[in-house]
């Protein structure tokens, strides 16, 4: 069982690196796209109409991927009043509770998120670039799935030695995040 949990944590290390890598690239693209719009606007005097559509797509994916990833390190803030005063056993129980409640949200985000994406994707596209809104709305179920995986990771004990964990991390993308 312990090996299974450690294996899961190692897989999450890899997934965390990949997802953060993607989110970082999206953040960079978000800036470059906006900067492009400003420069063209100031130089030519005409704004590029498609900038907002692309920004919206990038922004949504960056947020939902990021929201999934930060769940593993407790990135979503809560009132830590009770958590900080109870012992390690109760803390572990609370972490399991957080994960279970997160999975309820994940169910709605993934199951109904896919339904919603399919529904809007059937007939609606963006105004200028004709991108199917399916790709916009898909960010919600994907983010939800990541939230579930990383919330489970946060609840499970990580019994790997720091050296093992570092080794697993080093085996991944090699991006210094």
């Amino acid at each position, binding site marked *: 069982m312990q090996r299974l949990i450690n294996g899961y944590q190692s897989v999450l290390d890899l997934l965390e690196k990949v997802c*953060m890598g993607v*989110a*970082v690239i*999206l*953040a*960079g693209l*978000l*800036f470059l796209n*906006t*900067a492009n*719009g*400003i420069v063209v*606007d*100031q130089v030519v005097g005409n704004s590029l109409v498609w900038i*907002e559509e692309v*920004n*919206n797509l990038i*922004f*949504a994916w*960056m*947020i939902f*991927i*990021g*929201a999934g*990833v*930060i769940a593993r390190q407790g*990135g*979503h*803030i*809560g*009132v*830590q*009043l*009770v*958590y900080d005063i109870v012992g390690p056993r109760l803390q572990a129980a*609370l972490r399991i*509770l*957080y994960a279970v*409640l*997160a999975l*309820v*949200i994940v169910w*709605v*985000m993934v*199951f*109904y*998120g896919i*339904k*919603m*994406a399919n*529904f809007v994707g059937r007939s609606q596209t963006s105004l200028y670039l004709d991108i199917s809104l399916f790709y*916009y*709305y898909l*960010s*919600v*179920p994907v983010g*939800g799935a990541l939230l579930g995986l990383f919330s489970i990771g946060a609840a499970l004990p990580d019994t790997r030695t720091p050296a093992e964990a570092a080794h697993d991390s080093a085996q991944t993308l090699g*991006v*210094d*995040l």
Partner: protein
Amino acid sequence: MIGIIFGSFVPMLLLGVPIAFVLVLMTIFVYVDMGDPRLFLQIPQRMFTSTENLLLLAVPFFIMAGEIMNRAGITDKLMNLAGAMVGWIRGGLAHTNIVASMFFAGITGSAVSDTVAVGGIMIPAMKENGYSEEYSAAVTASSSVIGPIIPPSIPMLVYASVMNVSIAGLFLGGLLPGVLVALALMATAYLIAVRQGFGERTPFVGFARLFLALIHGLPALALPALIMGGILGGFFSPTQASAVAVMYGLLMGFIFYRNLKLSDIVPILSHTVKATAMIMFLMACAKSFSWLVSYYNLVEHVTLVFVSLTENKYVFLLLVNILFLIIGMFLDMGFAIIVLGPLLAPIAYQYGVDPIHFGLITCVNLTIGLASPPFGLVLFAACGISNVSLARLSWAILPFIAAEIVVLLLITYVPFFTMYFPRLFGYA
């Protein structure tokens, strides 16, 4: 239904369930109770539409700009300038800390960044010069709240997008309260320094050194002027101004200060993603919760509670301030703005309070909560960099929090301080 909302809200919050999760879970519980599965489609739909607000695109860019300037090493330059300006007053390093925080406020808009950047240098320097550790940490933590008051300000961006209030008006309105908070903190720091014998008076460095420090610090100080000037002059929208702030930061970091390296880019973007995801996911979850607020007419219920307590505008504002101060001690300000803002602002408007004025009361009040014992976020950050226990810091910071509350009451009851600049530029 109301029972489900409040019956699940408080226990989950106390158990430490992330606030964003609590908001969605309450919505899910109510939908389950209503028994119509089609309602669940609203949750992903509302979550997604929260990301379509273009104004909120400024959130990642202001976070990015602050992180760029931080890594470009502007903290030293701003502290040199602050030291040259006010270091000669009794308790000079405390004043330097406060003024540096005020300058830093124009760059980051985040109290925690300010605590770490300024406190990381100032707390050890103050200790070396005979100031007590808890006094140094208290000055750092209390002055860092100026960050979200002086523009640019992330909480104001969130407030403006949730409440549909002019962001330029809010930014302009934050200028005087930010300076007032700094002056109140300096007065408090001075009195404590005199009473406890901290920081002997040192001679003024002279105008030549002050001018030199000003030249070095000017490019960093120009950032808020660029943002406000660009917006007010009609050159950029607030979102574009935030991206211009990033461009300016890159220019300063790579070319002017030459402290920024290409290897800094990934950590800057990584920090931006994490901070933005936290704020925006909370917004997305609150968007799904907002359906409940309108469906159950929660605004009307809250209005009735307040009207039953008082019909006097000034008493209402006092009650709101007390409520926000208590909530700010325990809860994240994002939650308070997103959930309580739409409940309380309409009542304030009925009492004749200007939307910009009420927005600033809310933001300044909740910002003070960031440094209020026992759970203020910046208290934990200050403890982390100073090795002072939370209990000792909580005592030491009380006089500074009291000074900030005096300023809060001043801006609440004298609208001149918040409305002067917005009126001057035609935003109110």
